């Protein structure tokens, strides 16, 4: 039985009269004739077995909204989850801009039709360049993990060296992404972190350094929230053996934390999601890579890169692809790294976010986050049996809390908190077994003192 409507609203030429006239114009009697090249045995017999359609927009909306309503979200539930995707306030203007139909429905348009999109992307790169004090910035990668992987592979090609050093504190997911991506190109050497401080083990680093090392990669702040206080020493040691220094950052920290180039970074990468992008169950992630504007760096980027240039009319800017030949769209099977559609819409959001905050806003925001996170760490540390912060290094917005002495697992604690309307910290007990029953708590500008006190009070009760 046919379930087809008189015409499909999204398909103008599904209207029978128009379809007939178009077939006549082509000179075929049936659309089936157009499929003559597909052998009969490869054809789907009849219809696919798919759910019956919800033809009206109302029914569709009701059904999907109903399904989604089973979710509990962080807008309504107090959440302290972080670990690579974070809840920050997304300004209404950022949403307004990224929801504009022109940006949402644009794609691969060029210098002329998509001038505005390209300008927005150029401005994103330019504002990121100011944050990290570097002149070359990529369009987005898929996420921080892919940005770190690309930075490491770029360093290996630039230095023509086979190994790279990464910290054990980079988180299991990011580690897995980097490891898989680098497998064919770079051998990774992992340096442990000091279990008391969370800082990189410098003695281990010294032992691992050699002229085989293409780059030393570390993070500020790291996955475990810590600020690597030995950053300049690590960079110095890397440079001593001729290796490059690549630093991963959460750019929302850069109003208060130093531009990594100032303590020796050659490549800077990181995550854009904190800059005006909703978490989207992880879909809000987008990475970036930045470097000096030198040919040996720029020619190794796999990503799209937008440059500004002149037109036939004086005073006019236009935007085009810089060194298009280097991309996998030209290199095909000779590529070292592929590229494709990534996360450009979030670059537009990140640019708008940085423009809204400006230098002072970003500094105030970062300072406020530091204060809130420290307050939260201290409040939780006052609870009997809870060690917080469990690592002694300074931290930005995330910190490790050790529940070992409470005799309860993080899973049990988080279940109890959830019943009280709170999403507790990220359970680290599997990916960092050495830290025992520990969790990573994330505190940002969305958390008021009242929110933090509520967490501490509920946790106190849960642990009684």
């Amino acid at each position, binding site marked *: 039985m*046919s379930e087809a409507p008189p015409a499909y609203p999204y*398909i103008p030429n599904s209207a029978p009269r128009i379809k007939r006239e*178009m*077939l006549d114009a082509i000179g075929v009697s049936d659309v089936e004739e157009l499929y003559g*090249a*597909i*052998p009969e045995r490869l054809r*789907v017999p009849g219809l*696919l077995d*798919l*759910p019956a359609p919800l033809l009206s927009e109302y029914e569709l909306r009701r059904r999907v909204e109903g399904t989604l*309503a*089973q*979710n*509990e*979200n962080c807008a309504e*539930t107090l*959440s302290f989850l972080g670990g*690579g*995707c974070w809840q920050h306030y997304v300004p209404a203007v950022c*949403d*307004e801009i990224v929801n*504009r139909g*022109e*940006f*949402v429905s644009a794609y*691969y*348009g060029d210098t*002329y039709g998509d*001038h505005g999109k390209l*300008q927005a992307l*150029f401005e994103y790169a330019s504002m990121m360049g100011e944050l990290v004090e570097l002149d070359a910035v990529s369009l987005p990668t898929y996420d921080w*993990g892919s940005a770190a992987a690309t930075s490491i592979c770029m360093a290996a090609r630039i230095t023509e060296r086979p190994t790279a050093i990464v910290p054990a504190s980079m988180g299991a997911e990011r580690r897995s992404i980097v490891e898989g991506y680098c497998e*064919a190109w770079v051998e990774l050497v992992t340096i442990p972190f000091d279990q008391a401080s969370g800082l990189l083990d410098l003695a281990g680093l010294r032992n691992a350094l050699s002229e085989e090392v293409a780059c030393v990669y570390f993070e500020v702040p790291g996955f475990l929230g810590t600020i690597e206080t030995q*950053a300049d020493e690590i960079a110095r040691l890397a440079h001593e053996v001729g290796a490059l220094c690549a630093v991963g950052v959460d750019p929302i920290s850069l*109003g208060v934390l*130093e531009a990594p180039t100032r303590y020796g970074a050659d490549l800077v990468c990181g995550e854009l999601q904190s800059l005006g992008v909703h978490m*989207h169950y*992880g*879909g809000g992630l987008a990475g970036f890579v930045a470097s000096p*504007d030198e040919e040996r760096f*720029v020619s190794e980027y796999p990503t799209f890169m937008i*440059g500004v*240039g002149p*037109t*036939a009319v004086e005073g*006019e800017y236009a935007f*085009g*692809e810089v060194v298009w030949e280097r991309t996998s769209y030209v290199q*095909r*099977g000779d*590529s070292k790294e*592929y590229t494709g559609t990534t*996360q450009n*819409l979030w670059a537009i959001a990140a640019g708008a976010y940085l423009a*809204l*905050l400006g*230098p002072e806003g*970003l500094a105030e925001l970062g300072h406020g986050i530091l204060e809130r996170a420290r307050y939260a760490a201290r409040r939780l540390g006052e609870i009997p049996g809870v060690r917080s912060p469990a690592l002694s290094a300074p931290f930005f917005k995330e910190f490790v809390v050790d529940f070992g002495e409470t005799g309860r697992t993080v899973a049990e604690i988080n279940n109890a908190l959830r019943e009280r309307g709170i999403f507790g910290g990220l359970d680290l007990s599997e990916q960092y077994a050495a830290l025992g029953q520990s969790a990573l708590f994330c505190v940002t500008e969305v958390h*008021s003192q009242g929110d933090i006190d509520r967490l501490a009070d509920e946790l106190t009760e849960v642990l009684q």
Partner: protein
Amino acid sequence: MTLRPFHQASWNEPIIFEMTSPGERGLLVPEVEESLRCAVGDALEGIPGSLLRSRSPALPELSQPQVLRHYLRLSQETLGTDVNIHLGLGTCTMKYSPKVNEELIRSPNVADLHPSQDDETVQGILEILHGFERMLCEISGMSRFTLQPGGGSQGVYVNARMMRAYHQARGEGERDEIVTTIFSHPCDGAAPATAGYKVVTVYAGDKGYPEPDAIKAAVSERTAGLMITNPEDTGLFNPHIEEIVEIVHEAGGLCHYDQANANGILGITRASDAGFDLCQFNLHKTFSSPHCSMGMPCGASGVTDELARFLPAPTVEFDGSRYFLDYDRPESVGKIRSFHGVPATVVRSFAWILSLGAEGLREVAEVAVLNNNYLAKRLSEVRGLEVSFADSNHDHRLEQIRYTLEKLQEETGVGTLDVARRTADFGVASYFPSHEPWLVPEPVTLEPSESYSRADLDEYAEIMAEISREAYEEPETVLGAPYRSTVHQMDASPHDDPERWALTWRAYLRKSGRQSGERPSDSALRPSAGRS
């Protein structure tokens, strides 16, 4: 038909840094409570001075209305599918992305979910991820999908990684070659190359597609697999596809079907029917999710039962009463993208399929193919424009066609890049000529998906006819285009010159010798005399 007297928005909008007005603020951040501040004391304590920002970042300073207006002007200077007949981006499947689906994903129940929330709190989104996977299995004939890849190329990449894992598990890790074809998407070579494979590229035969004999010559005991598009960029369905798959299988390789744009074959033929082991769909192409200025993509990668154990972790499972994420996958290739990919895009595509059903999905394919052949018919009247491989292959094309303007170029000196630029003067985004290399001379690749009306197709054909007339009668008009776009003809030469390219505003200022706040005049980036 009279062509519309179009002029694109052209605000001559400054670079945002040129608009800065020190002291203005676009957003205030939440104040820290005084009692909290007192309790904490010095928040910077313990952070070495070398890690504290020494010089404030030179970001622009603007009030909120100025930021909004700036970006909305830029949006007006962007020809998305919502505002133009966007069929020129062949291979990209520019179609209508229903607005209701955009509203669905703006809900806090999608936008404000943290990816590490307990499964119990995300049953709704997991149900959709799980249900959508079942839909794709039915559409492709594959057994399982991962929705983790954050793009089509990454979808191809994960399949290359799974091929490697498969061969290694069988003790055949020495298979180190991937075969692809020259009219397949470039990522079908680039993604396996990134995974460490040597790539062998097979060229098309007289009929415009690779012949079985050429594939036979390319495979060996080194072959790990084939990565191929069908139809390829030409829009020609390769009728020997089953035989090609068979040849690769006999050599011990696996076969990946790049279905980034499967728009012409939904419900018509399936990857499994031709014997493929892996495939990938781009939800932002075939399945109507918007292209988001090259953002929010999802590459859904499907595999046969035999390969399912290698899928990235986690998968979404259902135990009869609840949905859960399964991380316990010992043979998994690991993480490809963080967390669960781009789930909002899955919600959009899920809703799109739900709105159409099986009949609607086939209607999409049939009308996409109908539109393509109708447009081809209309374009056959355009002087100087021809269909590639038309002399040697009389099959109907499916969802797209690579045309050639070789004749126009020979007869008028006007080439495809000139014509593409000129189309911008008529309100349509410049078309995509071709992937590299340009084997079809002066290429034009058009893909009129199901979203365009007959009137739209007629208008596009009229635009091409008018530009052809201009090329023959007043070629300088086309050569100097565009005139009515946001900007005029760009001098692209700086973009390949390390001394002059400028990837950021700070680099531009440095290289042009300009001060911030000065509008460009005779900048150092101007082409020097004699350079066109």
